[in-house]
Every structure is written in structure tokens, then in C-alpha cells.
């Protein structure tokens, strides 16, 4: 049975990775299972300088989902490369660095720094955080701005470049096309939907940042639809599917819709071993259905 897949030239031992921001820098979960079991570890979004993120409260549970407004808190690329990467590299898995900038120049600088670090296997460009201001959001929602940032980052790195798309757009296929035309080797989708919750007793938002990103099972139908739409128009672009994947069955839905790999996000919080259950469940599904190679069912949904 073959679970190996290739994303933008990068071979993964299986199609299951962690979604950025839900698995820390990987090491937080090293005590729960052997990280070498994973297809890839995608780390928390990094920036050139450390960032302290938004004031608390930062999370709120909604019906079958959660809102977060972490605000891209991170230790900065230099500290990541110095303190985390050497330890993370010891695991036999791929390391994908999710990163962002506050300006195009910062995006480019971050990409260049990560490009030079030993042990980063691919970059995931985050243009889709709902906790930033409207100007920043343009990176993920305005095709012209998206094209520019992707093209500039593309020049700054020779690593496989994954662009992570925002779902908060009218036409996800347009954004996908723009990113690919500008040089993305693969696409991740989806990031969180922008949401809000209000405490009716204090009549204040539940999050200090007012709005936050909605993740978890609640968003799965939207994520799956977007992935399927993008796969339909860009069948040869490797897609990494995410958004509400809690079980192997969810992962298989994404693969059938066209994802060559999947990322497990919020589910890690619910169960630190969620990724292992997803990998195991995919294997069971394959043997139950006599599927020799996982690649055989990518995009296999019959519509």
C-alpha cells in the first residue's frame, strides 16, 4: 500500500500534515507521539521579527468550531532557526515553514531567511490571517496584491512554495489561479473564515480583537467545496486540503475532492494524536477498498 505523495516536488511519506498554528513549532507535541510518523510538520506562522500577538482573550468556542485571534504571535525566524529547527530536523519528517510579513519587503526578507536555513523543506506563504487589519487582508483577498507578493517571494526562494489561500473571498478559483500564475508550486486551503461572537452579558466581543478566525468541523463543508472548485479548474496543481478535518473520513473527503495532501488543525487540540488516527484511518480505508496507491483516489469523486 503506498501512502507516499509528492507536493510541489517534495515527497511526503504520507499525505497527513499539521496545520500551521495548531501544532506550535512541532516540539510541543513531540511528547505525545513520534513526529516522524507525520507526512510533514507545518509550524506556526513566522515573521522576521518576533511578534507578541493580540491581547487576551484570544479564543472562544463556537458550535462545532472555535474562533481564534492569536494575531500571529511567534518567536521570529532567527529564534526558530536557532532554537527549534535543529531539534525538529532530527525527526524523519518534512518541515514546512509557514511565514508572513507586514509588508511585501518583510515577506521577501522572511522567505530569504528561511530559504537559507538548513532543514526547511518548503515554505507556506500565509496571506490569509483574519486577525490582521484591512490593509493586510489585501494580501489574501485582492488578486493584484496577491500576485505581487507571491511573485516577489518566488524570486527570493528556491524552496517549494506553497501559498495558503483565504476563504474570505468571492471566487477562490481566481485567487488560486493568480497565486499559481505568480509562481506558487502548490496551494493550501483553507485558512479560517472570519467570525465573531458577543458576550451578551458584558455586551462586549468575546475576543479582544473583536473578530477572529473560525476553524473546526463547522467550516468543513465550505473548505471541501473550495478545494473541489480549485481542483476542477487547476487539476494539475497540488492542493493541500484543510478546514475541519477531524477524522480519516474527513481527510478522504478532501482527497476525493482533489487534495494530494491534508492538514489537521483544530483536531490537534481535541486530540494530540489526531494526525495518527487520520493516517491509520486512511490506511484502513485503502485496504477496505483495495486501493493500492493513495494517489489513485486524488480527485476521484464522481460528480
Amino acid at each position: 500500500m503506498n501512502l507516499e505523495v509528492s507536493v510541489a516536488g517534495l515527497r511526503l511519506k504520507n499525505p497527513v500534515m499539521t496545520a500551521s498554528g495548531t501544532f506550535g513549532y512541532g516540539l510541543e507535541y513531540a511528547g505525545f507521539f513520534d513526529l516522524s510518523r507525520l507526512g510533514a510538520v507545518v509550524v506556526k506562522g513566522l515573521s522576521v521579527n518576533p511578534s507578541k500577538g493580540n491581547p487576551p482573550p484570544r479564543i472562544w468556542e463556537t458550535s462545532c468550531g472555535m474562533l481564534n485571534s492569536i494575531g500571529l504571535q511567534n518567536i521570529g525566524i532567527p529564534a526558530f532557526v536557532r532554537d527549534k529547527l535543529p531539534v525538529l530536523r532530527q525527526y524523519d519528517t518534512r518541515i514546512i515553514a509557514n511565514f508572513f510579513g507586514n509588508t511585501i519587503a518583510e515577506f521577501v526578507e522572511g522567505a530569504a531567511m528561511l530559504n537559507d536555513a538548513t532543514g526547511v523543506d518548503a515554505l507556506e506563504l500565509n496571506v490569509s490571517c483574519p486577525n490582521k487589519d484591512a490593509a493586510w487582508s489585501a494580501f489574501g483577498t485582492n488578486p493584484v496584491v496577491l500576485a505581487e507578493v507571491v511573485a516577489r517571494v518566488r524570486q527570493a526562494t528556491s524552496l517549494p512554495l506553497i501559498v495558503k489561500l483565504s476563504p474570505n473571498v468571492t471566487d477562490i478559483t481566481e485567487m488560486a489561479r493568480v497565486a499559481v500564475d505568480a509562481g506558487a508550486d502548490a496551494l493550501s486551503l483553507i485558512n479560517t473564515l472570519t467570525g465573531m461572537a458577543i458576550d451578551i452579558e458584558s455586551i462586549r466581543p468575546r475576543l479582544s480583537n473583536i473578530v477572529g478566525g473560525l476553524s473546526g468541523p463547522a467550516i468543513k463543508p465550505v473548505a471541501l467545496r473550495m478545494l473541489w472548485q480549485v481542483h476542477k479548474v487547476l487539476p494539475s496543481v497540488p492542493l493541500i486540503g484543510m478546514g475541519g478535518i477531524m477524522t480519516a473520513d474527513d481527510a478522504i473527503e478532501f482527497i476525493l475532492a482533489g487534495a494530494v495532501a491534508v492538514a489537521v488543525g483544530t483536531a490537534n487540540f481535541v486530540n494530540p494524536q489526531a494526525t495518527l488516527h487520520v493516517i491509520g484511518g486512511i490506511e484502513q480505508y485503502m485496504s477496505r477498498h483495495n486501493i493500492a496507491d493513495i494517489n489513485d483516489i486524488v480527485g476521484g469523486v464522481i460528480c
Partner: protein
Amino acid sequence: MIRQFSAEVTSNVRLSDGVFMLVLSPMSEVLRPCAGQFYMVGQGCGIPGKKPLFDPLLKRPFSCMDYNDGLLHFMIKLRGRFTAILGNCTPGTVLELIGPIGNAFPAVGAGERLIVVAGGIGIASVAMLLRDYPEATLFYGVRSANDLFVDQLPPVARLHVTSDDGSAGDKGNVLEHLRQYIASIVETTEGGVIKVYACGPYAMTEQLCRMFASKGGDLCKVNGWTVEAFVSVEERMACGVAACLGCTVSTVNGYRLVCKDGPVFSVNDLIPVAT
């Protein structure tokens, strides 16, 4: 040893209208918790092969109230959806846990006096201290006699109960009585170190900072005595393992994570948020 395990409910006793004691038997070997540490508790995995239910979604943090004969004791207040589910769990139900989590209360040095302070359900976070330090004094403030669960505690050397309505112990605010008590100690005995380890509602944490913080606390140093106060604080949590960065509190050293750097913080570090 991994800190994730399943545990079976061995008993679940309603202590009052709003509080219950949940006793869990871990189904694999677990680490011994220290006073002040907590667990993320979630529902079991549902029916194998069936899509599980995801409302409520996340695990919730609960302090270990006692660890005895291999059993984990949780004293839990009915708050919302998940505590309602836990309150109805029958023996045999399997839950999923992560823990023990957090930094625990610092060790009390030889010769130091320990005063444990609990406000309401906060008793659950400090009760284990009473086993570790049988000589400790407990200040236990509740709203009314219904919220008082002294019989659930290890034996206490010196117990001061206060209640808002006077239905149990002295009437009034627990911290006012604590203040008087400390005042009497520092007047009548030779100097030394008093450790105050506390857990209670947010307003109590705030007040403790005002009383004992080394900057501005009016009671932190008196008559040759030093009072060092540590509080267990609450924040919403998703992961419990420092991965989501959700459980931040503001400290003088910047944002800190309750699940990793806490839940116990020195009153010198906390920056209470004006409400």
C-alpha cells in the same frame, strides 16, 4: 510517559446544586500531579467507525483536587455545556485527558509559613497543598454554607471559613479576614516568610495583587515579615500544551501562557486587567 490517557469515571457525586466531585481511574500509567497542576478533560472518542460529535469541541481545564490510590479527583462547578455533560457522567464512562499540566505552586521552604486561600470553587486548585503541607492554614471564603465543602478536604491544621451571607464561619470577605490574620501574626511573632497560595474568582486575584505585590502591595513587607503571594489564574484554553497560544495573560514580562508558564503566577508578575 505520554501525558495523554483515557480514564474511567469511578464515581460522580453531586456535592450541591452546582458542584460535583468526579473521580477518575486512569486506564494507563500516569504521572503524579503536583498541587496547582491541572488536566485538560474531554469526551471519549465516541463509537468506533462512526462520526463523533463535536459540540462541545474542545477539552476543558480542571485542576486536580486530589490524587489518591491512583484515582484523580476533580471538584467541578457547573458552568456551561461541558461541565453539564461531566455532571451527568455515570460510572464507567470513559473520558480523555491530557496532564498533569502547568507549573504547580512553588515549594514552601523550611521555616516558611504557608497560608492557603480559596474563593469558592478555587478550593479545587489549592486543596492538594493541604496534603503536602499539613501545617498550612486555610482561608476558605464562600458565598454561603451551600458552597462550603470542608468534608472533601484533607485534614486541615487551621481553618478559617468566611461566607458572604454569614451562613458559615465568619461573615465577610475572605481577604479581609486574611489581612487581619496576617496583621496579628506580624505584630505578635518574630519576622520570617509567609507564603500565600491562592485561587479564586478574578476579583480576588486582583485584590491579592494589590495586597501583596512587591511593588505597591501594602502587605508585602511588614515588621520583618515578607509575604510572597502566588495565585492560580484561569484563561480560556484550546490545547493545554502551549501550541495554540490561546491562553495568554499579561505579565510584567509580556504575555505568558497559563498552560505553560502558569497556571500559578507570582502576584509580582501579574498585570490585572481593569474591568
